[in-house]
């Protein structure tokens, strides 16, 4: 974080104390949102967020900033709609401009099965408090005139679903707004402070070993992205997580307005326009489990090819930047926000390719879980023990990238 930003955002750094009520491991969106909601909703400010590198530098800075709630199962629709609502009021609440922009989200179907799926999505969303409507070819063309409905002759667009609440926000600003909100109320954030171990007393977590010395804690929240399996294993936990890289890229400026966020369920890619006018694209995760941030040519080649099939204007643009994040994939493509069976140790993980959109709701719910010790109703289905209890929340078709 450079000096300019430190002047603009009221961040105050402190040396780490010996002890905190709550220690949150991971200074990304979810960790900072948990600190923010602990401070604003529960008055718990003796809190430290520990970040190995710098805040917002992991997956919070490597995503494609889409906010939506058009999921395929009731539990997820309710949870992500909460997040959509919290995002919409976050600027007013924090008095910081996060560049939140409601754009509408178009999901395209290229087959009869796809059409059925999008009709079902619209029904499920409507029934559980989110707005999604089925749209015809004509309506799709009105929402996004740049689309080639014939899909290059190979991938015709037969219909789709439209989710008006679809939005984007600037990822750094979300992170800073939450960090500042937590900090001005007394929470500490320690950057370049890696957690190297957990202090245990029998079956109870009592603190963390860090590169800045031991810190004892009343509760430890694991909000790590990417290295969660290692951290959980320090508490003797096994996780249903496999970490895969996910790549994305932007082009140079497209002079015209490209209003909606568009995703294709058949071609498996999604695209939106950034505030700077760049076209931002992403697709599926890499096939190998890995922690590497390396980007590859094969990905931009195949993703660009698929995107140009539907949006021929992209041919005239050039790719500017490419980057990679690492996604913690759960077997059922739903997140895990839960107690762990280890006392005072809470975990929020499995954020796969859907973490950014869940930042405010995830933080709000984790804060309530930690503050009260009771699992809030909204996230009760997302517990870690759902796999052993055969209550998985299969929602692969809503990840947008699989």
């Amino acid at each position, binding site marked *: 974080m450079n000096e300019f930003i430190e002047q603009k955002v009221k961040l105050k750094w402190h040396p780490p104390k010996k002890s905190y009520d709550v220690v949150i491991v991971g200074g990304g969106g979810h960790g900072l949102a948990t600190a923010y909601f602990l401070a604003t909703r529960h008055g718990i400010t003796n809190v430290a967020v520990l970040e190995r590198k710098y805040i917002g530098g992991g997956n919070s800075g490597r995503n494609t900033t889409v906010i939506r709630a058009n999921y395929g199962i009731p539990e997820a629709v309710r949870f992500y709609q909460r997040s959509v609502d919290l995002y919409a009021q976050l600027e007013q609440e924090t008095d910081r401009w996060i560049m939140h922009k409601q754009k509408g989200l178009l999901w395209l179907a290229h087959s009869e099965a796809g059409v059925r799926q999008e009709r079902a999505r619209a029904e499920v969303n409507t029934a559980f408090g989110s707005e999604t409507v089925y749209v015809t070819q004509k309506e799709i063309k009105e929402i996004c005139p740049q689309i080639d409905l014939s899909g290059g002759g190979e991938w015709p667009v037969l219909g789709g679903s439209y989710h008006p609440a679809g939005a984007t926000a600037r990822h750094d600003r979300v992170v800073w707004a939450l960090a500042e909100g937590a900090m001005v109320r007394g929470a500490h954030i320690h950057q370049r402070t890696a957690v190297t171990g957990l202090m245990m007393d029998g079956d109870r977590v009592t603190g963390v070993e860090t590169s800045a010395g031991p810190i004892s804690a009343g509760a430890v929240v694991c909000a790590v992205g990417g*290295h969660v*399996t*290692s951290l959980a294993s320090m508490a003797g936990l*096994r*996780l*249903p*997580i*496999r*970490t895969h890289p996910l790549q994305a890229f932007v082009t140079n400026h497209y002079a015209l307005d490209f209003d909606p966020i568009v995703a294709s369920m058949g071609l498996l890619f999604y695209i939106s326009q950034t505030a700077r006018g760049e076209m931002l694209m992403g697709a599926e995760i890499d*096939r*190998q*489990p*890995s*922690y*590497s941030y*390396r980007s*590859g*040519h*094969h*990905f931009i080649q195949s993703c660009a090819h698929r995107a140009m099939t539907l949006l021929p204007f992209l041919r005239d643009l050039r790719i500017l930047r490419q980057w990679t994040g690492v996604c913690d994939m759960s*077997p059922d493509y739903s997140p895990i926000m839960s107690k762990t069976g280890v006392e005072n140790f809470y975990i929020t993980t499995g954020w796969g390719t859907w973490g950014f959109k869940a930042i405010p709701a995830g933080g709000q719910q984790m804060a309530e879980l930690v503050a009260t010790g009771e699992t809030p109703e909204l996230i009760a289905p997302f517990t870690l023990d759902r*796999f*052993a209890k055969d209550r998985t929340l299969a929602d692969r078709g809503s990840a947008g990238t699989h």
Partner: protein
Amino acid sequence: MSIRITCPNCGTRPIEEYIYGEIPSVPDTITDADARNVDRAFMHNNPEGPTIERWFHLYGCRRWLTLHRDTRNDKVLLE
């Protein structure tokens, strides 16, 4: 450059031709039979560092091979 995997039958080919296969391993510390089944079905070692894994050459000879790879940097260590 994507990762390249050397297949004993087909030579060195890009990773996009292969399908990943994890070698499941349930820790000995889990003794309960049900818990072992849950672990085998859902849990992953998800290692950070050198690992041994299986890959299926789907768009080639359609045989399995064993690969040693470092998950921190995707370097192929031993084929």
